[in-house]
């Protein structure tokens, strides 16, 4: 497994996945970005700034918390939660937004564009832009604007300009299309702050590097506390940045099982889901070759998930690679199961998770009961659920107030 540390290769491939399938207009910009990132990556002062702001501004390290009552409830393996929900802005997205924001500033780009699904990346990007004094434009699908109203308001408060996207499925996929079109048009002075481990090289590796702090901390914390590595790491997968972030430090520890949880929506058999790895085929979307949900003519399919952040027909190329070599396993959890896990975590631990990691919590509770008590499961609790109150209250048929 040692050589896997070297991936992606110089062309941005993880095995057969990744690459750069973009209009020529963007190729020079991607080369420029790659060169700037390589330079920053080998500059200790870049990481010194990243680490100091991660600590003082974002609130790192985040705790690794033993979920005692949840564990008791499941009557099996011990469940730990990596508390990324406690970060500034309420999700892991800030790690990447901070890293790329600092890079954009180094590159002298004053205008930042970003896409967002659930709004967490949009909020993180708007936050970092406010902090660094950069202009911020966020593309968001009209359907997502409807269902994530709180984050929409937060982005505006933070000074970002929100551009609704009404094309296609009006969700994250189309927000990325629109952000890419903006970048094609304004590439000379604009930095595209992509929010997940998707897109053309070098985004998947760069976003992974900024998110890999999650796994590094988890590894140290679990070793300090339990004096051994965990048996399972479980994380939700939309584009897959929180999952890659916590997986990366454990990829060479083959005894640690890595499990990614996709959104089964209303059920895989209904077609209303977002499980690209579980039910997709290899294709090219948003500049990279990876698993995608597509029809027999290669048209990208619409998706459904109660969690806007998982509602995406593609997935990061490194996940496709980890699946292809059997290093990670990908499963799917449906809307109802995620909602039940959401409530369970509220009631047993007093923690309100975002609907996205509620999928990971659901799968963890499912397998915990089948495992002996000395087994250790770490769930990446990638975000806080405040943004989901409207969706959850509607889904539960509860009137708020």
């Amino acid at each position, binding site marked *: 497994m040692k050589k896997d540390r070297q991936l992606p290769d110089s062309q941005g491939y993880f095995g057969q996945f990744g690459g750069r399938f973009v209009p020529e207009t963007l190729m020079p910009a991607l080369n420029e970005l790659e060169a700037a990132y390589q330079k920053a990556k080998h500059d200790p002062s870049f990481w010194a700034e990243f680490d100091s702001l991660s600590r003082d501004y974002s609130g790192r390290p985040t705790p690794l918390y033993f979920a005692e009552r949840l564990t008791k409830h499941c009557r099996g393996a011990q469940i730990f939660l990596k508390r990324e929900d406690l970060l500034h802005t309420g999700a892991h997205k800030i790690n990447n937004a901070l890293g790329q924001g600092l890079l954009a500033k180094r590159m002298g780009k004053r205008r930042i564009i970003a896409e967002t699904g659930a709004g967490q990346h949009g909020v993180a990007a708007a936050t970092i832009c406010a902090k660094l004094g950069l202009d911020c434009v966020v593309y968001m699908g009209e359907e997502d604007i409807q269902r994530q109203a709180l984050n929409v308001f937060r982005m505006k408060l933070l000074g970002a300009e929100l551009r609704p996207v009404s094309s296609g499925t009006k969700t994250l996929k189309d927000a990325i299309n629109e952000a890419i079109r903006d970048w094609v048009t304004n590439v000379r002075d604009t930095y595209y702050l992509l929010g997940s481990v998707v897109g053309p090289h070098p985004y998947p590796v760069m976003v992974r590097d900024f998110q890999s702090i999650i796994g590094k901390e988890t590894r140290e914390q679990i070793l300090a506390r339990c004096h051994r590595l965990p048996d399972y790491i479980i994380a939700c997968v939309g584009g897959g940045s929180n999952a890659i972030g916590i997986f990366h430090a454990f990829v060479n520890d083959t005894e640690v099982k890595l499990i990614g949880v996709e959104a089964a929506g209303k059920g895989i058999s209904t077609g209303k889901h977002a499980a690209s790895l579980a039910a997709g085929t290899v294709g090219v979307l948003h500049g990279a070759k990876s698993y995608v949900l597509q029809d027999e003519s*290669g048209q990208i399919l619409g998706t459904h998930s109660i969690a806007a952040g998982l509602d995406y027909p593609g997935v990061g190329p490194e996940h496709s690679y980890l699946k292809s070599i059997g290093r990670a396993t990908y499963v799917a959890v449906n809307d109802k199961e995620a909602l039940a896990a959401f409530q369970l975590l509220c009631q047993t631990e007093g923690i309100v998770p975002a609907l996205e990691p509620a999928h990971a919590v659901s799968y963890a509770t499912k397998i915990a009961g089948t495992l002996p008590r000395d087994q250790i499961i770490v769930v990446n609790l990638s975000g806080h659920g405040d943004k989901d109150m409207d969706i959850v209250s509607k889904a539960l048929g509860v009137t708020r107030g």
Partner: protein
Amino acid sequence: MSRIASVFAQASHIALIPYITVGYPSVETTLKVVPLFASSGCDIIELGIPFSDPLADGATIQRASYHALKQGVTPKVCFEVAQELRRQMKIPLVFMTYYNPVLKFGLEQFCSKCAEVGIDGLIIPDLPPEEGQELEKSTKKHGLDLIYLLAPTSTEERIELVAARSSGFVYLVSLTGVTGARDELPRELESFVANVRRRTEKPLCVGFGVSTAEQARRIAKVADGVIVGSRIIQLLDEDKSLGNACSFIKCLREALL
């Protein structure tokens, strides 16, 4: 000599290359309008295979693609349309589409089918030469031209690479942006074309944003061909009898004489 190469072998002739999305607003329209364009002085026809996520396209072609997909236009339908058109005309036909529908069809199967129905070349805006080796094996095998694109942002190094690998002609994207009719083309257009010209002997055709005879005339002074897309789609919307679109083509042809 390929059909596309023979277009550019005519001395001091500027090629006129219209784009239309197959199945916009209907397959019948495509079958009617392409022969009309061919007889109105077009040299090559670009047939767009619609894709769900056309990220190099502006609002006009996005809408046309979306509409065509709703009509059930698949690559298979596009092959049938191309075959029917090939029966009626001799000028080169090229497919313009995104990489995923081609990949899904199977690179080899797609190219073999293109050759079978009489398609002459492919334009794939999200496929830079770095990712094109696999497809090139099949295009070469089946005698198809794979036309790569250059943009105003392309570095000298990339101009060399793209020009060397492109076959048929080199597609010069006139502006930094997506497709769509523009009132004005960039001031740097001439120097961009001249810069590419210094590095290759291949024919250079300019597209993106072209919407008037005046702009076409300006391009004709420096390039070997003019590509027009979004404006034609708009004219198909304005006048379902196709009259406006055909007079626009004639007017462009005159401008290029």
